[in-house]
């Protein structure tokens, strides 16, 4: 066999590889952009594109000079000598210019020349070339110059507590800014601030988990009857289920909202569980019934002949064997409810879920990207974990037929 045939095959396939990779990159860029941004400081988000973090960073002004003359004693961060801490603004601000820096350097340190054997420029004019970049770099070191690049989790903290100030929450808390303290306690209890993603996360779990369990329970029971029991109207009711799957939930919003008002159930968790269950059931029954119906018929027959009743057959036979379809359905329903916006917006307005809270954080003028990026990714964490852990089941849930509405 030609040893190069593998290689030939690869080059013949090169356009295919390029097309697949190009499309993957195209699909990833929007998400990656938001993800990278969620770790950047708000100043950096506002002034430069997120992709600049992947470009070589231009060296800060004065860094080469500082490294050459000062770093051996003061250290790369300027913090090596505690009595002359160059990252402290109070120290650095005494030497704003090359001239003041030169004057200071001419003073001996502990009886020896400051710079050792290196000769200093004679006049302030000569000092301009070498010392003014150093003075600029000292400003950067002390955090007063341009942005010192670096990643932070501040956006996630801001999103969790729902903080929309001009500085980030941690800074404002450290500086005890009065307007911050009026709303926040600057303790862990802020995580439950009604405008934050922390509380919204808990609300979303409280909505999604019971809504999923309820659908699974009721759908499994009904699917068993539709697959293996005989009752009047079984055929046309099941056909009707296909139709119900695609009824737009917009149809139900107003009458159910009025019903909940009459029952004093506005903005109650029970109300939203039942609503999600109602609209989840048609597809759930359809999916599980199709799976249960394809189980071998002889098995059910012999179970009945052995004297088992419906309940025993359901619990010991149908339910355990239908588990793959129940898993698919459960994951599908869970992600669906987790990502829902419209139903939660209308039926759970006083307990905002993640999607509703994100829209509350959006600034119509287009600013505050840093909070939004953190908030968006907080809402992605759970569906992403579920998706990557159970991708097989999720896909199977989709393949089982049409998709519910």
């Amino acid at each position: 066999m030609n040893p190069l045939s593998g290689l030939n095959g690869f080059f013949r396939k090169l356009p295919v590889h390029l097309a697949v990779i190009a499309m993957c990159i195209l699909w990833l860029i929007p998400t990656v952009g938001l993800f990278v941004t969620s770790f950047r400081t708000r100043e950096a988000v506002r002034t430069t594109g997120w992709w600049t973090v992947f470009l070589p960073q231009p060296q800060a002004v004065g860094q080469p000079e500082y490294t050459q003359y000062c770093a051996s004693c003061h250290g790369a961060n300027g913090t090596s000598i505690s009595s002359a801490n160059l990252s402290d603004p109070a120290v650095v601000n005494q030497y704003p210019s090359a001239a003041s820096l030169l004057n200071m350097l001419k003073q001996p340190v502990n009886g020896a020349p400051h710079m050792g054997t290196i000769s200093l420029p004679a006049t302030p004019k000569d000092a301009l070339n070498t010392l003014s970049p150093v003075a600029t770099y000292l400003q950067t070191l002390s955090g007063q110059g341009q942005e010192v690049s670096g990643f932070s989790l501040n956006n996630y903290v801001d999103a969790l507590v729902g903080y929309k100030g001009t500085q980030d929450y941690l800074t404002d808390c450290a500086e005890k800014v009065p307007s911050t303290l009026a709303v926040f306690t600057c303790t862990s209890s802020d995580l439950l601030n009604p405008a934050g993603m922390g509380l919204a996360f808990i609300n979303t779990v409280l909505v999604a988990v019971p809504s999923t369990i309820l659908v699974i329970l009721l759908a499994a029971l009904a699917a068993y009857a539709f697959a293996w029991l005989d009752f009047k109207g079984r055929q046309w009711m099941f056909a009707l289920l296909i139709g119900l799957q695609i009824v737009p939930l917009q149809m139900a919003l107003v009458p159910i909202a009025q019903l909940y008002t009459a029952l004093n159930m506005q903005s109650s968790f029970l109300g939203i569980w039942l609503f999600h269950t109602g609209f989840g059931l048609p597809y759930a029954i359809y999916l599980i019934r199709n799976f249960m119906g394809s189980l071998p018929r002889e098995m059910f027959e012999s179970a009945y002949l052995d004297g088992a009743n419906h309940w025993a057959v359901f619990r010991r036979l149908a339910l355990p064997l239908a588990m793959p379809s129940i898993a698919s359905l459960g994951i599908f329903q869970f992600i669906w409810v987790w990502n829902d916006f419209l139903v939660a917006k209308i039926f759970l307005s006083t307990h905002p879920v993640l999607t509703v809270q994100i829209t509350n954080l959006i600034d119509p003028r287009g600013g505050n990207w840093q909070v939004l990026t953190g908030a968006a990714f907080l809402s992605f964490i759970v569906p992403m974990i579920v998706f990557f852990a159970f991708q097989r089941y999720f896909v199977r849930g989709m393949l089982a037929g049409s998709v519910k509405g």
Partner: protein
Amino acid sequence: MIPKVMKQGRLAPWLYVLPALVIMTVFIVYPTIGTFRLSLLDATSTHSAADTCVAGQPCWGAFENYRYALTNSDMLLALRNNALWLLLMVPGTIAGGLFFALLADRVPYESVAKAIIFMPTAISFIGAGVIWRFVYDIETGGGAQIGVLNAIIVGLGGQPVTWLSDPSVNNFSLMVVGVWLWAGFCMTILSAAIKNVSAEMLEAARVDGANEWQVFVRILFPSIASSIIVVTTTLAIIILKIFDVVFVMTDGNYGTEVIANRMFKLIVTNVGQSTAIAVVLIALTIPIMIFNIRRFRSEEAAR
């Protein structure tokens, strides 16, 4: 068919179906009727919609709210936009999904590539809206462009574009988000269908001298036609109800209004008009509903 031995008990089956039937009746059937009733009443559901007619103006009597839903300029715009989505975004998404399914089938890292395309399916439409607002961001104050699209355009020497407020492009900007979201869904279903096509048949056609394009048009495409129909109807329903993406990105401003967003806007201020829009929405889905039930019937008959 149900085995005879299982036909025991008249009441027992109902114990299994009744809980689900009751909830579906209360939450789907009853409100559907209620919505139709409310659509014939006025803004606060206290009088007949006919009472809102103004003398000398056109009036549809009790169906006055439908005059709004079908002739008002905002609604005409919304209907036009939903039609645009159906005509452009649905075929675009299916073509993209099919294209990727065919390509990914030929590379060894198929599962990774597919997971990347499929991933947007798992995140919320609201989250996707935030992601894409950032892609479309425009800096007008003279600073650097932080939206990746405008940064590329400016980098190539062009002028930045207001992707979301320029009426000549913004509907397409929103549709791109839709393609990004649902191409993975189409890819998954079509890819499964492609893998079901017998390899011998494709090979036989190639041996007989058919080129790849002929193999696709004559053999592959007819074999997956039923899956394409499933994907088309599913997407059509999603698009008729499209709401979250538009709500979070433009809120229907600058000529991007859609039916479901219009309905949401009126839900508090004018119940009559809002429910009339909901009825229009379900009327548009009924053909698909009938089609699906028929397809199910013929599939059952074929079993």
